[in-house]
């Protein structure tokens, strides 16, 4: 598995040697501050994504037509995503070699990419026909599938992200 990542090793090592990377790594407060901000941002982002996925699955927030929910939550989801991404990138920047050797980090990255593809496919394909199913209690299979995949993948991202703290397989 790790052989696949060999081309990235030099990039991570290059980052690892940056003076500012070392400074964050060694600071007593910046790293914990980033970690805490990342948790807040991911709760914001993940929570709002979850609320939308529950609606897609037909098990939650059924009082709201889907397009209204989407329109209202989307800007806030993007804010959450941007803050999660900034704090997440800073965490990786501060300890590149710790993440490089951690299998949970790579599982998280793959799941995040898949979740992104799922969101794009939903947005550009399934969502086009929203006017036809907006108020339905049971949404078309493609919408339910997008909800189920989104739920499973984002839960996977959160779980594997949290497990990075445990370096069982090194």
């Amino acid at each position, binding site marked *: 598995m790790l052989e696949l990542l060999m081309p990235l090793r030099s990039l991570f090592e290059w980052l690892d040697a940056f003076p500012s990377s070392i400074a964050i790594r060694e600071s007593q407060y910046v790293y914990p501050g980033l970690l805490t901000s990342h948790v807040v941002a991911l709760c914001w982002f*993940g929570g709002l*994504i979850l609320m939308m996925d529950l609606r897609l699955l037909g098990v939650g927030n059924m009082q709201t037509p889907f397009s209204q929910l989407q329109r209202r939550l989307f800007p806030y989801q993007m804010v959450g995503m941007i803050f999660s991404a900034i704090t997440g990138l800073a965490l990786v920047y501060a300890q590149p070699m710790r993440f490089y050797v951690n299998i949970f980090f790579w599982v998280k990255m793959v799941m995040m990419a898949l979740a992104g593809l799922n969101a794009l496919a939903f947005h550009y394909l399934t969502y086009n026909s929203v006017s036809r199913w907006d108020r339905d209690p049971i949404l078309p299979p493609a919408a339910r599938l997008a909800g189920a995949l989104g739920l499973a993948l984002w839960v996977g991202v959160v779980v594997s992200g949290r497990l990075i703290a445990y370096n069982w397989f090194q």
Partner: protein
Amino acid sequence: MLSYFEWLNNLPVSTAIRESVWMSPLVNVAHLAALVMFIGAVLIVDLKLVGNDEDTPVDAIARGAEPWLLVGFFLLFLTGVPQLISNALREYYSIFFWFKMVVMVVALIFTFTIRRRVTLAPEGQFSAGARKLVGALSILLWGSVAIPARLIGLFT
């Protein structure tokens, strides 16, 4: 109080959790997943209160979110207790733990009294300003529970 925390810390179940390789991680992961659900159910209503745009009425959104709010909090409690008892002494000596507990009690009371009343009220009963204030307070309170919670484990 200290003797009570010592007693919790020395319970056989606390020791078992501490000595197990996978129990603490499992509980930590489940607690975070439950937190995401809970915060989602809080925010979907609070952002509507703060943003106050015209579509679905607040009470409909609050009714839709309430089961997830309750399930989320129940799961947080269920996964929080094992963390507390297995680290009872660490928690006892952590200022962040006590801060979290105090704010959590305030946030819970606020959520199930004032916030519940305002969100479930028919449209027009409370002014836009009052609703914005309740939404902002709720975000502030629950944020002040989550932030020190993460800090307990980082500064011991």
